[in-house]
């Protein structure tokens, strides 16, 4: 199928397939899946600036479906989400401006690709280390509740006294500095605006491990927040000519089906094992990116 906006020729079945896999990942791991979708779009021959904007817009549709479900389950901390939106939008704008600067220097593909690989490998390494440590420390067999070996870090951040201090009752947090939330959201926003997608692979672990938000509330709040921040990202990238909405619509059609299956799969696994199963996925994305950068070849 010819996509006239980004001037690329990608098989619709390939896009729906990528969307489907990303959807399963999203439903199962609670992340947007841009660590796979981004490299997959790039590998199919789409220019990197379009990869970033298009992936971001595809995330909006997916987040709407997910957030509505989580809101019905009471898993959305709206106060936390609205605070994070402010930090994320500022971060997304910074990320989009960085892309613009790289576009002017004509080395956007290379720089974004290298940063993408570094982020993906780091996340994979961290998740692997954390889940193995958690399973060694706690006997997780048959355990339903979500435990983490990283709990002491969130307690340290809660003790950080920089006014104004706020409370987040829906997340079970009594006192936390507003600046800690904004800083975290800003970093997530920069990653989102620079690498595309909702940056759930950065923000989700940060909310759980750094802010100490319960995992199910973090997933729901993240999705709710993504609707607004990725929506803003879609607008700003579309204005800069970085969004092929046709590709996003086709991918979203596949991911909506995959998300249903992924969500069903979570019934059969518990927290640390899900996080351990997540480890190879960013590495696959990184491998795809390395292949595309080194060979200069794209497959359609």
């Amino acid at each position, binding site marked *: 199928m010819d996509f006239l906006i980004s001037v690329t020729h990608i098989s619709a079945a390939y896009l729906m397939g990528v969307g489907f896999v990303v959807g399963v990942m999203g439903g199962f791991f609670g992340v947007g899946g841009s660590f796979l979708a981004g490299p997959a779009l790039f590998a199919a021959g789409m220019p990197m600036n379009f990869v970033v904007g298009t992936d971001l817009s595809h995330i909006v549709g997916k987040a709407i479906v997910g957030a509505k479900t989580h809101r019905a389950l009471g898993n959305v901390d709206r106060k936390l989400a609205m605070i994070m939106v402010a930090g994320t939008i500022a971060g997304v704008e910074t990320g989009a401006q960085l892309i613009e600067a790289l576009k002017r220097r004509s080395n956007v593909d290379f720089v974004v690709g290298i940063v993408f690989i570094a982020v993906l490998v780091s996340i994979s390494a961290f998740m692997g280390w954390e889940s193995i440590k958690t399973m060694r420390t706690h006997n997780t067999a048959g355990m339903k509740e979500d435990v983490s070996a990283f709990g002491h870090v969130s307690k340290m951040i809660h003790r950080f006294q920089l006014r104004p201090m706020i409370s987040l009752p829906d997340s079970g947090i009594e006192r936390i500095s507003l600046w800690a939330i904004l800083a975290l959201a800003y970093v997530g926003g920069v990653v989102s605006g620079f690498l595309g997608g909702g940056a759930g692979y950065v923000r989700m672990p940060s909310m759980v491990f750094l802010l100490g938000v319960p995992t199910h509330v973090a997933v729901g709040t993240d999705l709710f927040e993504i609707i607004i921040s990725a929506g803003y990202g879609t607008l700003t990238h579309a204005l800069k000519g970085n969004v092929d*909405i046709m590709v996003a619509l*086709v991918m979203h059609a596949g991911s909506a089906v995959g998300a249903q299956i992924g969500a069903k799969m979570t019934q059969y696994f518990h927290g640390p094992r899900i996080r351990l199963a997540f480890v190879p996925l960013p590495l696959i994305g990184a491998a795809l990116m390395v292949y595309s950068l080194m060979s200069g070849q794209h497959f359609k």
Partner: protein
Amino acid sequence: MKFFITVRGFHKKLASFGEYLLEILIYACFISGYFFLVLQFLNGFLKPVFDYHKTLYAILALTLISMQGFALERLTSGISHVVRRTGAFISVLLRLFRPHETIRKPANVPGLLVYRFAGPLFFFNAGHFARRVQELIDTAGFPVSFFLINAEAIVDVDATGAEALVDLRSSLKEENIMMGLCEVKGHFREVLFNRALLADFTVYPSVAAALRDLGKEQPEEKKK
């Protein structure tokens, strides 16, 4: 006990997974239809908007992906609702076609087969009922001399069901097998009584009464 609970749980999960697969299949068909009909037309329309009206394109892009998100969410809930309702309806229909059954072969009354049919006997399942009785007799593993139908759960019977009972009694008689009924009550009893069919059968108030009565009739050496 734990094993049976696990097996029951597994069957429940399997059934819900089947329902779920059906849901996904319908959903995928809708998506494919949507894709081929709508997206093909959009491609040509959006290109000039992208080239000459970036602001309009940005608003359209956000609107389109948001609308698709909302539409798919509504579609998912709708299909899930329809599949659940249809699944319940089909399971009720299946229960009517093939009601639960229990078979007993009391050791103290040789040659007796007790068959409990848990559903109304009517034109949907009368043929199945007759076939099942014949199958049970053929596969009993001993020569059946008395076939007792425990009718406590046969809450209703229609003309076809009543005819099936009479035909069955006649065909079993030809094979020298007696047919009896027990726990005949409610509308089932009324229909048999009004059609003057009740007198054609040996009727017992309960299974226990039937066992007592039939046990007495057995010669001592046959009981052993």
